[in-house]
């Protein structure tokens, strides 16, 4: 069953997808640097009236929890925050784009977090995205 992106059910399915991804378990096994927020910028035309975030509590290769919260709360709670407009996230999910390439193109931005740490765990970031790409997703447009 496909879940609307972004939403609470999608976030829950995403958590399961991360934990079902053995490549993430391996690439993220040393990650002890805190929570990661994926933030979708507000877009009232598709009923996202304010920035919304998926806050992943990832630790040592396991996703211990996930919350779907406002962007403000996600930014405040997360150790790392990656943000972008809805259409860019959609493109990333549909086209299996590389997150690093998306960051270099300015489609997504790392708005919070220690960049050298993020770079050290680049494979882990890729596997987080690969997990998202495996979630059956219904898009808002």
């Amino acid at each position, binding site marked *: 069953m496909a879940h609307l992106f972004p939403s609470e059910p999608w976030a829950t399915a995403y958590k399961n997808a991360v934990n079902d991804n053995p490549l993430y378990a391996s690439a993220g096994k040393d990650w002890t640097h805190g929570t990661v927020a994926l933030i979708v910028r507000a877009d009232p035309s598709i009923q996202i009236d304010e920035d919304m975030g998926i806050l992943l509590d990832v630790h040592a290769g396991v996703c211990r929890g996930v919350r779907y919260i406002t962007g403000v709360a996600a930014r405040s709670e997360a150790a790392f925050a990656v943000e972008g407009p809805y259409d860019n996230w959609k493109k990333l999910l549909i086209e299996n784009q590389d997150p690093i390439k998306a*960051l270099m193109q300015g489609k997504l931005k790392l708005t919070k977090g220690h960049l*050298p740490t993020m770079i050290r765990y680049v494979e882990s970031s890729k596997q987080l995205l690969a997990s998202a790409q495996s979630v059956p997703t219904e898009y808002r447009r």
Partner: protein
Amino acid sequence: MNSPDYASRIVFAPDAEQNGLANMVAGLILQNLHDRPDKRADFARLRGRISIVAEDAGVAITLEFSGDMLTVHAGIAGIPDVTVRAQSDDIVQMSLLELTRRFALPDPRGATLREIAKKSRTGQVRVFGALLHVPMLLRLTRLMSVH
């Protein structure tokens, strides 16, 4: 040791702030300068222009070092002394280069250097001007390395 205000010494030329690669590289250098005092001497000594082209992403930047000062330009600005052309992944790999304990040179035993050397041989990673500007390239490598 007090950390000098490097944020004011790394500036974006007009339009560069919108360039994701420019933000990544400037952010990485700034964070390294804050975290690692041993990298500050390299920043102070670097002079010249280095262009980085992420071919698959269709993005380029030029780093203009002028001794304790860096201006980041979008695209190729002026005539670069060194130009690095690679895939976005390989550019990130370059910042993962392991450095030797002594002299902080790229470690020939490191897996990352061997991988990059292999890609250089096949033309996947191309560095123009490297032979004429070895010290500049080594300083940039140290400055951008997360190790």
